C-alpha cells in the first residue's frame, strides 16, 4: 500500500518537474501568447478644413444599431413592441406594421443580430437608444451598439468629390479621390503606435512597460483653399441651372487670379430620377472638346506670332467655309460680313477664326501647334488629385493622326481636348497678364495649431504670352460681355464688370446629333481681375436651350454678382466734423428746469423730440405725416411717468 502511495507521489513529482523545467518554456510562451500582445494604437486621421477654418472632413465615431431579439423577456418584448414600432416608424417614415413584423420575425427566427440602423451620428444614436425597449439596455432590452470611426463631412454633399476620401473595398483595393485621397498618406494618415500589453478584465489591455515602443503619431490637419461661401454660391448656382436645363452633368471652378487658389469647385451629375449629386470630379477628370472657349488660345497664338492684329479685317463670306467637303458654319446664318479680328472673337465667328488660323498657318501648321505647346496646353497641370484628364492636341509630326482637317477644326475648338480646369488655368493666366499659375487646393498643413508646411503659389510658366497680347485679348473678352454684339451680352450688368468667352459645341456627334456642351470661361472684375471662373454644362435639353451664354454664363454671373455684392465699397471722406448726437440730447434734457412739467417740443425736430420725451419717462406715439409737430399734452402741464403723449405731424 505504502509502495503504491510512494509511486503515486514520485510520479506527481516527476510530472511537476517535467512541466516546470522540461516543457516550462513552451507553456510560459503559450500563456504569454494569450495574455500578452503588441497592441496597435491607431493614429487619429487628420481633418480637412476650408480656407476659413471650417471643417470639411473629419473622423468621428459612427454607430450601428442592432437588436438581439432573444434578449428581452416575453413580458418586456410584448409590452413594448407597439411603442417601439411606432417610434421607429416615425423616425424612418415607414409604416409601423413593417417594424412590428420585422421585430416579430427576428424573435421567431432567433435572430440575435438584427440590423436596425447603420452609420448613425451621435445625436441620432442617442435618440434610438431612448426608444421603448431599447432604453432598457443591452441585457434586458437587447440593444447592441457598435461604434466605429468613420469619415464625416459637415458640409454634406457640397464639394464632396474634391474633398474626397480614402476607401478600401473587400478585396483591399484602395480608392482615393479628392484632396483627402491625394494627401491622405502623406499628411492625414499619421503612424500607428505599438505597445506591449497584458490582458486584464473587461477586454482591456494594460501596458507592460511604462513607455510605448512606438508612439502613435496623429495625422496632420490640412487647410484647403476652398472658400465655403463661394463654394456654397457656386454649388447652388450650378445646381439650379442643371435642373432648369435638365442637363446630364456640369462643373464649375472658381480660382483666385493672383494666387491660383481654387476657391470653389463643384461637380454635379444627374441620377436616373433627375436629381443631382457630386458624382465624379468632371472639372479635373473629364477631358473634352472645348469648342469656342478654345478660340482664345488660337487668338493668343496668332497675336503672339504677330500674324494678325486686332484691327485686321476678315471676310466671313456667307458664314460657310468648306474643307475637304466638310463645312464650317457660323451660328448666325449668312455670316457677319467683313469684320475686324477683334469683333470676330467677340461674336464668336467660326468662319473668321478658321480663316484667320488657316490663312496664316496652313503652310506651316507646326508653327501654330508649337506655339500652343509652348503655352503648356499639351501638358497636364500635374495636380496632386488623382485622375487628371490628359489634354490632347495632335502635332503635325504625328503623321498617323494629323490630317488636313485638324488645323481648321482646331481653330474653333474641335479635334482637341482639355479638361475644364486646364482651360481655366489658361484663362487665369490671361487675366494674370500672362503668368500661368498652377491651380492649388492646399494652403497649409498644421499639427494642431502649429504650422508644419505652407504652400505658396506655383508658377507653371512666367509668361505664356506678352503683356500686350494679354491686354488685347482681355479687351476682347470684356467686349464679349459689354458690347451689344458680344455673345454674352445677356449677362451684362451696369454695376459690375465681367469678361469672358462663351462656348457652345456639339458633343458625341458621332452617336447622335443635338447633344451640346455649353460653357463659359472668364474672370472678374475687368479692371483688376480677382477671380477667374469656368462653367461647363454637358448635354442640356436642347428644347430649353443650349447656347453657352444662356446655359452656362448665368452661373458665372451669379458667382460674380455674389462676390461683388459681398465686397464693401469703401468711401473715404476727409475732414468731416462729427457732432455727437448723444450729447445733443443731453443738452435738451439739461436745459429743462422742472422735469415734472411738459416741455414745448414743437420747435424741435422729431427725433430730438422723441428722445427728449422718452428721457422724461413718457410714452410717445406718432401720427400723421409732415414736419410740424403738434403735441397732445400742453406745455407746462404736469406730467406723470408712462403718460401717453401723441405727436401729430402736419
Amino acid at each position, binding site marked *: 500500500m505504502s509502495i503504491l502511495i510512494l509511486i503515486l507521489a514520485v510520479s506527481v513529482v516527476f510530472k511537476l518537474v517535467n512541466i516546470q523545467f522540461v516543457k516550462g518554456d513552451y507553456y510560459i510562451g503559450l500563456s504569454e501568447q494569450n495574455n500578452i500582445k503588441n497592441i496597435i494604437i491607431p493614429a487619429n486621421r487628420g481633418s480637412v478644413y476650408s480656407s476659413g477654418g*471650417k*471643417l470639411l472632413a*473629419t473622423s*468621428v*465615431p*459612427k454607430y450601428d444599431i442592432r437588436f438581439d431579439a432573444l434578449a428581452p423577456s416575453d413580458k418586456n418584448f410584448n409590452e413594448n413592441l407597439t411603442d417601439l414600432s411606432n417610434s421607429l416608424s416615425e423616425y424612418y417614415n415607414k409604416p409601423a406594421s413593417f417594424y412590428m413584423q420585422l421585430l416579430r420575425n427576428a424573435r421567431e427566427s432567433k435572430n440575435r443580430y438584427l440590423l436596425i440602423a447603420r452609420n448613425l*451620428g*451621435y*445625436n*441620432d444614436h442617442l435618440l434610438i437608444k431612448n426608444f421603448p425597449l431599447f432604453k432598457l439596455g443591452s441585457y434586458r432590452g437587447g440593444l447592441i451598439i457598435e*461604434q466605429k470611426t468613420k469619415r*464625416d*463631412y*459637415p*458640409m*454634406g454633399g457640397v464639394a464632396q468629390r474634391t474633398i474626397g476620401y480614402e476607401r478600401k473595398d473587400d478585396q483591399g483595393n484602395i480608392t482615393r479621390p479628392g484632396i483627402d485621397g491625394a494627401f491622405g498618406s502623406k499628411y492625414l494618415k499619421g503612424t500607428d503606435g505599438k505597445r506591449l500589453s497584458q490582458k*486584464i*478584465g*473587461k477586454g*482591456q*489591455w*494594460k501596458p507592460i512597460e511604462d513607455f510605448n515602443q512606438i508612439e502613435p503619431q496623429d495625422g496632420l490637419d490640412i487647410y484647403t483653399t476652398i472658400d*465655403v*461661401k463661394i463654394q*456654397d*454660391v457656386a*454649388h*447652388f448656382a450650378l445646381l439650379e441651372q442643371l435642373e432648369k436645363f435638365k442637363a446630364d452633368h456640369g462643373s464649375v471652378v472658381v480660382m483666385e487670379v493672383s494666387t491660383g487658389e481654387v476657391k470653389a469647385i463643384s461637380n454635379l451629375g444627374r441620377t436616373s430620377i433627375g436629381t443631382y449629386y457630386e458624382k465624379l470630379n468632371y472639372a479635373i477628370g473629364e477631358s473634352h472638346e472645348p469648342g469656342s472657349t478654345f478660340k482664345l488660345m488660337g487668338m493668343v497664338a496668332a497675336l503672339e506670332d504677330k500674324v494678325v492684329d486686332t484691327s485686321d479685317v476678315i471676310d466671313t463670306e456667307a458664314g460657310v467655309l468648306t474643307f475637304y467637303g466638310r463645312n464650317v458654319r457660323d451660328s448666325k446664318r449668312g455670316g457677319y460680313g467683313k469684320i475686324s479680328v477683334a469683333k470676330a472673337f467677340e461674336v464668336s465667328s467660326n468662319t473668321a477664326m478658321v480663316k484667320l488660323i488657316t490663312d496664316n498657318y496652313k503652310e506651316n501648321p507646326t508653327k501654330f501647334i508649337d506655339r500652343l505647346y509652348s503655352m503648356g496646353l499639351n501638358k497636364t497641370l500635374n495636380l496632386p488629385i488623382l485622375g487628371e484628364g490628359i489634354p490632347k492636341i495632335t502635332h503635325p509630326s504625328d503623321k498617323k493622326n494629323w490630317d488636313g482637317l485638324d488645323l481648321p477644326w482646331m481653330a474653333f475648338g474641335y479635334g482637341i481636348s482639355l479638361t475644364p480646369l486646364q482651360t481655366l488655368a489658361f484663362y487665369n493666366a490671361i487675366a494674370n497678364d500672362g503668368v500661368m499659375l498652377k491651380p492649388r487646393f492646399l494652403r497649409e498643413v498644421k499639427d494642431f495649431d502649429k504650422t508644419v508646411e505652407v504652400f505658396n503659389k506655383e508658377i507653371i510658366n512666367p509668361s505664356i504670352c506678352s503683356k500686350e497680347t494679354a491686354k488685347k485679348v482681355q479687351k476682347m473678352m470684356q467686349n464679349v460681355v459689354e458690347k451689344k454684339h458680344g455673345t454674352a451680352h445677356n449677362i451684362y450688368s451696369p*454695376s459690375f464688370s465681367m469678361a469672358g468667352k462663351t462656348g457652345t459645341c456639339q458633343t458625341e456627334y458621332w452617336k447622335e446629333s443635338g447633344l451640346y456642351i455649353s460653357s463659359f470661361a472668364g474672370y472678374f472684375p475687368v479692371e483688376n481681375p480677382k477671380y477667374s471662373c469656368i462653367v461647363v454644362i454637358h448635354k442640356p435639353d436642347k428644347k430649353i436651350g443650349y447656347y453657352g451664354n444662356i446655359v452656362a454664363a448665368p452661373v458665372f454671373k451669379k458667382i460674380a*454678382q455674389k462676390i*461683388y*455684392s*459681398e*465686397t*464693401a*465699397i*469703401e*468711401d*473715404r*471722406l*476727409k*475732414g*468731416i466734423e*462729427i457732432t455727437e448726437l448723444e450729447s445733443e440730447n443731453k443738452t435738451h434734457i439739461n436745459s429743462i428746469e422742472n422735469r415734472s412739467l411738459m416741455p414745448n417740443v414743437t420747435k424741435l425736430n422729431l427725433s430730438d423730440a422723441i428722445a427728449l420725451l422718452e428721457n422724461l419717462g413718457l410714452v410717445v406715439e406718432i401720427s400723421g405725416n409732415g414736419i410740424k409737430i403738434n403735441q397732445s399734452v400742453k406745455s407746462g402741464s404736469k406730467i406723470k411717468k408712462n403718460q401717453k403723449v401723441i405727436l401729430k405731424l402736419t
Partner: protein
Amino acid sequence: MIYSSHSVDRKIHNIAQINESVKSLRSEFVDTRTILIKYKMESSVSRKINQMGIATSTDPPVKIIIIK
C-alpha cells in the same frame, strides 16, 4: 505589488472610459456642428427668408471711412 497592479488596472479602465466619452463628445460636437453649418449656409438662410419676402441684396454695402 498586488495593490499597485490593481490600481494600474483601475486606472486603465478609467482611461478607457474617459476615452469613450471623449469620442462620443467629439462625435456630438461634429454632429451638432454639421447641423449648424447646414443652417448657417447662405443658401439655406436665403431660402428661409425668401418666404418672408426678404431677398439678398444685389448691391454691395458702402463703407464710409472718415480720415482725420
